[in-house]
């Protein structure tokens, strides 16, 4: 089977099911699977946009075996006469419910049709609870910034769903919880920014406690509970005018900031109060706690740095030398808040705009565990912040909000497979069962995860283990299956369930290796390995991750390369692997694994986006896209290498976080001479415009909005391009503080060409 058809197959499956597997033909034994080097794994986008898939308005039919409960799907065998179906996961025979009495071969329910391998159900379960948006706003901002932020918040009231509940907490030295009323008299409850309070204490102080009403499992809070919190959370359509005025009247924190000091910012307490406020009153309904901050927390629990300006906020060097005294404690504090929020089903966004760091390293778990956003900018008065923030509220082709809440993903596998874990913006639900592997990769030990904030791009990396014993016969029917069941609250507040059921052929790795090879998805594999690398990097330190990555790459080349022993020049990789080494080359140099070129906050920001995006965007982050525009033909992709920089070309580079348009030397001179203004050089004008038009497409849609660099040969901003295409100068000292273990590694600070040469040498060496 040729590569071209596999590419089509892979693309069709991604389009329909939101799934990209590292391997599309599966090695049938555990031993052989480990020899493949890249684990059997997939990127899964639970809410993959499917404009052509209308949801069905009934409950899914489940397998009756209590330890199974898989959903009826196209892989199930059906006896239409007896009205029975056989579960393809556990083989239990199940009776169809009475509503299915009329089905037949010619009259199948949607969920049995092959084209509905992904299907969405709308289920009616209890009263629909409104969404909640709780703004937590730092008022220790410069006047201009505060004004810009206030305007953005006022604007957002016009973008929220009309029935949503909204609330406001402001903080600086103290924390104020604002009562929202239509009376025009604004009252607030003030908390000291230094004293940590339990959720119960917070609720008591806000007057939110009353005799406990027994809350039934899975049911939302009863209406009378809502009236208590309504002093602080009101429907937008009722409170918009008063809240607009209230926001307009917000002042900078009145406490003066002495010379040489930072403002006292009680972010930790502010977040704690926000989490506690929602926890007591509205658990398990869709909510966003939206933190807007312009500097680091400097007092109270969760403080990241003291208020003395002469003590800088921790850098990676400080952390490496164990010289970051607040780091452990602050991280632990925010992790506890994040976990509580995740249990409650509420997500936390962080909008951090400042020239210096704001403590994203310590606070990132708040967003990473809950599926909330992190947006990082220089100031609230920038287009980057304003438009990125607007895009939180984008709507789809149906005019419905893209954000969704309370995602709970359950995975089921056929018996030859088990689940090792997931990597993405989620928490484990600790659900044990027959599908759960003892080997953990990512968040393991469970077959269920919770993603509180979820949208159409949210993508998890899922890792599996083949458990079939070596030399066991290839299973009957020859296919393994996986089912993904995602329950969530749609932005319309409807409860929905999306079910995706996929299958792939087993193959004996001894006799059919060429089929397995041909079905390798190098793009998916690169991203899945990269997520594993980032996961390791966040839990271990140092060059171990790079060494591990190098080892895997060498092993992969040894296994799948064609070569003569000890003859590097003979080394070849088949087409389905041809881009993989380059991905690994760029991954090793990327900000996800090389932290010393960035601040800890920047690294946290890049990694946050990396482990949640879909495949296409993730790949752009690993290996930026470079397109060349010229007079000689249509725009074309070129090697991400300095040899692609030519005087008469314009280059467009997309790193996901930046869009760079670079004008070659001659182009720059022509532009300066003004040829684009002359009628007879209309084609030059069009050439200049072409990359701008293509960049505009991306600028208008991407979340977060990227930075935009328009530069030319000799320009100071050209460094953004040059640092990506050339071997970095600063990589030299990165291996200095690691120890050589004697294991074969690839050297750093080299060009792609040299990297490839080293790789080939190591792969063919009989000594490895």
């Amino acid at each position, binding site marked *: 089977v040729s590569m071209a058809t596999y590419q089509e197959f892979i693309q069709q499956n991604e389009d329909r099911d939101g799934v990209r597997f590292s391997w599309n033909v599966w090695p049938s034994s555990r031993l052989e699977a480990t020899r493949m080097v890249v684990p059997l794994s997939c990127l899964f986008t639970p809410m993959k946009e499917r404009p052509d898939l209308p949801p069905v308005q009934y409950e899914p039919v489940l397998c009756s075996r209590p330890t199974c409960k898989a959903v009826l799907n196209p892989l199930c065998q059906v006896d239409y006469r007896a009205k029975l179906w056989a579960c393809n996961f556990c083989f239990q025979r199940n009776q169809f419910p009475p509503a299915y009495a009329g089905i037949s071969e010619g009259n199948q329910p949607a969920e049995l049709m092959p084209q509905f391998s992904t299907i969405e159900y709308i289920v009616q379960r209890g009263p629909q609870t409104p969404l909640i948006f709780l703004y937590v706003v730092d008022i220790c901002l410069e006047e201009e910034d505060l004004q810009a932020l206030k305007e953005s918040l006022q604007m957002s009231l*016009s973008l929220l769903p009309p029935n949503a509940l909204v609330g406001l907490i402001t903080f600086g030295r103290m924390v104020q919880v604002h009562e929202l009323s239509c009376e025009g008299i604004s009252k607030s409850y003030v908390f000291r920014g230094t004293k940590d309070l339990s959720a119960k204490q917070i609720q008591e102080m806000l007057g939110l406690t009353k005799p406990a009403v027994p809350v039934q499992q899975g049911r939302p809070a009863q209406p009378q509970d809502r009236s208590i919190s309504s002093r602080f959370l009101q429907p937008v359509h009722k409170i918009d005018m008063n809240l607009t005025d209230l926001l307009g009247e917000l002042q900078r924190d009145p406490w003066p900031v002495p010379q040489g000091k930072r403002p006292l910012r009680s972010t930790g307490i502010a977040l704690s109060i926000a989490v506690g406020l929602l926890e007591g009153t509205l658990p398990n309904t869709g909510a966003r706690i939206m933190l807007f901050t312009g500097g680091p927390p400097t007092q109270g629990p969760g403080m990241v740095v003291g208020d003395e300006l002469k003590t800088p906020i921790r850098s990676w060097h400080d952390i490496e030398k164990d010289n970051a005294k607040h780091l452990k404690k602050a991280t632990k504090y925010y992790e506890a808040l994040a976990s509580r929020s995740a249990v409650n089903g509420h997500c936390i966004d962080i909008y951090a705009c400042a020239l210096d760091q704001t403590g994203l390293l310590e606070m990132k778990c708040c967003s990473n565990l809950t599926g909330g956003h992190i947006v990082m900018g220089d100031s609230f008065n920038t287009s*980057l912040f304003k438009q990125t923030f607007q895009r939180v509220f*984008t*709507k*789809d082709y149906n005019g419905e909000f893209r954000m969704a809440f309370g995602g709970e993903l359950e995975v089921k596998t056929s018996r030859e497979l088990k689940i090792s874990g997931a990597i993405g913006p989620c928490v484990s639900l600790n659900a044990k069962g027959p599908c759960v592997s003892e080997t953990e990769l990512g968040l393991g030990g469970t077959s269920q995860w919770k993603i509180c904030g979820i949208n159409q791009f949210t993508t998890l990396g899922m890792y599996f283990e083949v458990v079939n014993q070596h030399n066991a016969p290839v299973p009957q029917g020859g296919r393994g299956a996986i089912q993904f069941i995602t329950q969530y609250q749609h932005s319309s507040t409807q409860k929905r369930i999306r079910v995706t059921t996929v299958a792939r052929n087993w193959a004996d790795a001894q006799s059919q290796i060429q089929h397995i090879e041909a079905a390798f998805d190098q793009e998916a594999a690169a991203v899945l390995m990269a997520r594993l690398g980032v996961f390791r990097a966040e839990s271990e330190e140092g060059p171990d991750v790079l060494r591990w990555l190098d080892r895997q790459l060498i092993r992969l080349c040894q296994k799948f390369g064609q070569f003569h022993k000890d003859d590097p020049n003979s080394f070849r*990789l088949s087409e389905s692997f041809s881009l993989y080494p380059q991905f690994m080359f760029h991954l090793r140099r990327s900000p996800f694994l090389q932290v010393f070129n960035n601040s800890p906050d920047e690294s946290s920001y890049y990694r946050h986006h990396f482990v949640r995006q879909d495949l296409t965007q993730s*790949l752009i982050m690993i290996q930026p896209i470079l397109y060349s525009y010229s007079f000689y*033909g249509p725009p*074309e*992709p070129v090697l991400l290498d300095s040899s692609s920089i030519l005087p008469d070309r314009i280059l467009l580079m997309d790193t996901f976080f930046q869009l760079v348009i670079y004008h070659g030397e001659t182009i720059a001179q022509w532009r300066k001479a003004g040829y684009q203004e002359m009628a007879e050089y209309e084609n030059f004008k069009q050439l200049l415009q072409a990359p701008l038009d293509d960049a505009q497409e991306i600028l208008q849609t991407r979340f977060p909005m990227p930075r935009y660099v328009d530069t030319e040969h000799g320009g100071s901003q050209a460094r953004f391009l040059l640092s990506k295409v050339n071997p970095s100068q600063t990589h030299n000292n990165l291996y200095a503080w690691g120890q050589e273990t004697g294991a074969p590694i690839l050297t750093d600070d080299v060009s792609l060409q040299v990297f490839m040469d080293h790789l080939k040498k190591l792969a063919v060496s009989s000594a490895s």
Partner: protein
Amino acid sequence: MVAGNQEKGWNDPPQFSYGLQTQAQGVQKRNFLNKRVPPPQLDGSQVSLPSGAPLPAKPLSPTLPLAPPPSTVVLPARRLSAVDSTALSASAHTECEASIEDVMGLLDWALTACRTTVKRQVCDEVSKRLTLFQEMWISGKLSSPVKKRMYYLAQELKKQNWDSADETHRSLIVDYVNEVSQWMVGVKRLIAETRNLPTEVLNAEGPSPKEDTTQNTQ
């Protein structure tokens, strides 16, 4: 499209109008800039240059004096057509033809209709903000695009095109927040309350003067 804030944010991207963004985000297109080139050593062939049209013998380097670019008619093929601006922003630069009386006449019609059933306090709050809007218009504090869009909004409101009026209010608060933030929420509320009025109330109120003057085609 307006340039970003280069003073406050390095490499701040340009700002797009609400209309452009909404249009672009409605349907997610496949990322078209997604091709990569394998490095020459591993794909078997020894081609070291990207595929495509044949290159000239030597890339055009700047010479002194600077040779001009090719002026042949063959244009570089473009990947996509340029994104169209919305109708609303197309006429942004010409003066607004309507007067404040035209606009207020329509808005006041709606407010009067609301006073029959909506709480007095809410109506008063809306009225306060409409007055502020009026003052800003008269004292020249509102730009021409804001005035034109407000006139359009008021007309849509009178025609009971609620969604269109609502979208217009959103486009105004997104694109011109610093001009409108103090009073736009009143207009937002006015639209929301008016659309919920019983039909007899809406149709009982006579058309305000100048309702059928030349439609400002946007």
